[in-house]
């Protein structure tokens, strides 16, 4: 029942043969040994498996690998090319935004998506000004709302909010410098 699929995972091309029932999460973990995304529920309810697919944050347990031919997938490990931690990695460490660490790669992929979505002006349910063309400030309320798809049973939420704020401040600052 093998089906060929071509995926670019953390910058590396891979050709695999998968069962049509194989999720992207299982393809990563069981076929490629990429254990960065975690399996917490396998039903899209916890967010531990969150990865970036062509730049969008998605639950990899809800995606079938065969449907993603040619997709570029980034895991939290891939966000640290050559082992260089991203702004979010550093912020999570400094703010102690995790305890057991099992939900953390998913939180970080999700937060990467949040930073991009806010910069692109995508509103959330708590956004008061629904203008589409300008970046949305990541207030604590915005972060809490946008990060609520990623459960953390250790209860690191206040530190996760602090970490995302720290990273948002850092990326705004670096964009300012770049301009």
């Amino acid at each position, binding site marked *: 029942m093998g089906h060929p699929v071509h995926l670019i995972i953390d910058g590396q091309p891979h050709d695999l043969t998968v*069962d049509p029932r194989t999720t992207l999460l299982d393809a990563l973990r*069981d076929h490629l040994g990429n*254990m*960065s995304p975690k399996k917490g529920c396998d039903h899209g309810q916890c967010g531990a498996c969150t990865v970036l697919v062509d730049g969008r944050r998605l639950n990899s347990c809800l995606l079938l690998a065969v449907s993603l031919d040619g997709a570029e997938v980034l895991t939290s490990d891939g966000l640290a090319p050559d082992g260089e931690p991203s702004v979010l990695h550093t912020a999570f460490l400094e703010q102690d935004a995790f305890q057991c660490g099992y939900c953390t790669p998913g939180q970080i992929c999700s937060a990467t998506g949040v930073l991009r979505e806010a910069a692109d002006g995508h509103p959330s349910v708590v956004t008061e000004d629904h203008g589409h063309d300008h970046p949305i400030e990541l207030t604590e309320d915005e972060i809490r709302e946008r990060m*609520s*798809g990623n459960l953390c049973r250790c209860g690191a939420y206040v530190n*996760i909010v602090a970490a995302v704020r720290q990273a948002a401040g850092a990326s705004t600052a670096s964009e300012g410098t770049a301009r």
Partner: protein
Amino acid sequence: MSDLLRASAIGTGRVRLDGPDKVRGLAPYAYEHPVEHPLHLFPLCSTIALGRVTAIDATAALALDGVVHVITHENALRLADTEDGELAILQDDRIGFRGQYLGAVLAETPEAARQAADLVEVTAEGAPHDAVFRPDHPAVREPEGGGDDIDTGDFEAAIAAAEIVVDQRYSTPLEHNNPMEPHTTIARWDGEQLTLWTSTQGVHPARQTLAPMLGIDPEQLRIISPHVGGGFGSKGLPHADMMLTALAAHAVPGRAVKHAVTRQHMFALTGYRPATSQRFRIGARADGTITAFGLEAVSSSSHTKEFPEVAIKPSRQMYAGEHRRITQRVLPLDVAVPSWMRAPGEAPGMVGLEIMMDELAEACGLDPIELRVRNEPEHDPDTGKPFNRRRLIDCLHEGATRFGWADRDPRPRARREGGWLIGTGVASATYPASRQPGSKARIRHEAGVYEVGIGAADLGTGTWTALTQVSADALEVDPDRIALRIGDTALPNATVAGSSTGLASWSAAVLAAADAFRREHGTAPADGVEAIGEAAENPAEKQFAMHSYGAQFAQVRVQEETGEIRLDRMLGVFSVGRIINPRTARSQLLGGMTMGVGMALHEKGELDPRFGHVVNHDLAEYHVPVNADIRSLEAHWLDEEDPQAGPLGARGIGEIGTVGAAAAIANAVHHATGVRARDLPVFGSDLLAR
């Protein structure tokens, strides 16, 4: 009382040493250890609550491509000891609860294993079952270990003479630990040697339980668990999933078998907090002094294996009251096996006790903090021993100042803001401060680096970091010169990461080893020398009633029309002895409080009486707090050391953050609305149309 260890690395907020790997997802959890060509396991589970298996037909499953084996009670390894009803699986045809393991399929891929499990035809004969908990059930009885009842003075006369009486029943529901990492095991038999890569709060305790059952020597069983993705008690004792994987692997010698329990199966197979009912009968003088203290607590349990949730635990020592009658009972049912969940006993016990105290304060017209001051016992009412350093009142006062309690209008339903009713509440927290003897640590020196080995666990508790700090100060070297190794039975014995005893107990072993090392090898040791030390009992535990205390404050708002409850802010102050790492300690306390928010407002396993199982068995329907549920949350601690806790001066902090949190929120809900919620969790619907 011992001399305190001089703090140098201790007390500093070092970033987690395992952090850089964990944020990238590189730290290996149980499923993630590389093994060659593993087989994947999918279990067969009972769909009835009571009865026996009459036939299992695996023909169609075995015919499926990639299926290697189907294990059932008919072909599984016979265990050497079947005393433990939870772990003695696949030994006979009996069914004791819905969801019980009846077998498993082993296949080359997870997809094939799961499909094949559906193809196995299990025929079972059902018997009438009893799965519904109620405290007046005729089968309610003393726990197997004894009721440990308290009956001092003349309770009935005292309550008859009391000026104020509070007589109320409180309840807590089934609650499920739900660590984010599902319980997972890889098992492989190499000849007579079994290796388990698993997720456990104690590799050595798990080995002590499993090896005799499997009929092997402890040395033939190696358990490896360097990183644990949360546990909150559910990974404290080995559960049936670990045994199932070991039994299944026995059928395929030399091949690794992987089994990650599905989130749904976790609700039946990996432990949960049983339901409690707590009837308090409290008599007091008009000034609030408690004279009669009565508590009848009942916990649900399982016929398959007994585990009572001892809700009377905190009431034994929290408050004064000369005439006392306290009993703990249990009701075994045809349901899944309950087990430890964060602060067993204290977490639910302080729900009833601390809501009751709020009611008593109201009945006496007293501030709830003042009521607690007036009922502060001089010595432990249970044992008569002096307390070690009981600073409950300091915590309450410090918290009151930080929270802004003084301005509070005590009248319920007095504060409204734009359609929201706002209220504040307080509750005490407590947890025993004990240390377990028997852990051993080995210190070995090589080229200026001290390798410290002990089979301890880090389930998010910060052990990798904090125990490194302790080791550095024990050896009086920089933490960079410590190489800690934990989570492996190949290392010296360690007691379980449970009952908030982990760090204190393991540190006692490390301190003893450091002592021995310096005594034997001096401060300029040769390469390759080593020393071993063992944790002794803490002699202070014989003389003192050893507990930690805290105070929890909460502010909620309740939407007047819909009953929607929002937690505005929460603040806890804890007296827990010396803090080893303030960065990780704060996280642990905040995390405990967050779990308390779940207890108060979200978490409830809904049991279907027709089938005896929890129907909301996933994370979409069993709600735990999400990011948007938690707004302002602060954890503080008193700046102190507790020499009676040993040279470390520290008491455990893993559980106390959860204790009292739910009651503080329930009391705030009452203050906001005037509605007294005595059955947790409190839902908005409880506050409407009364």
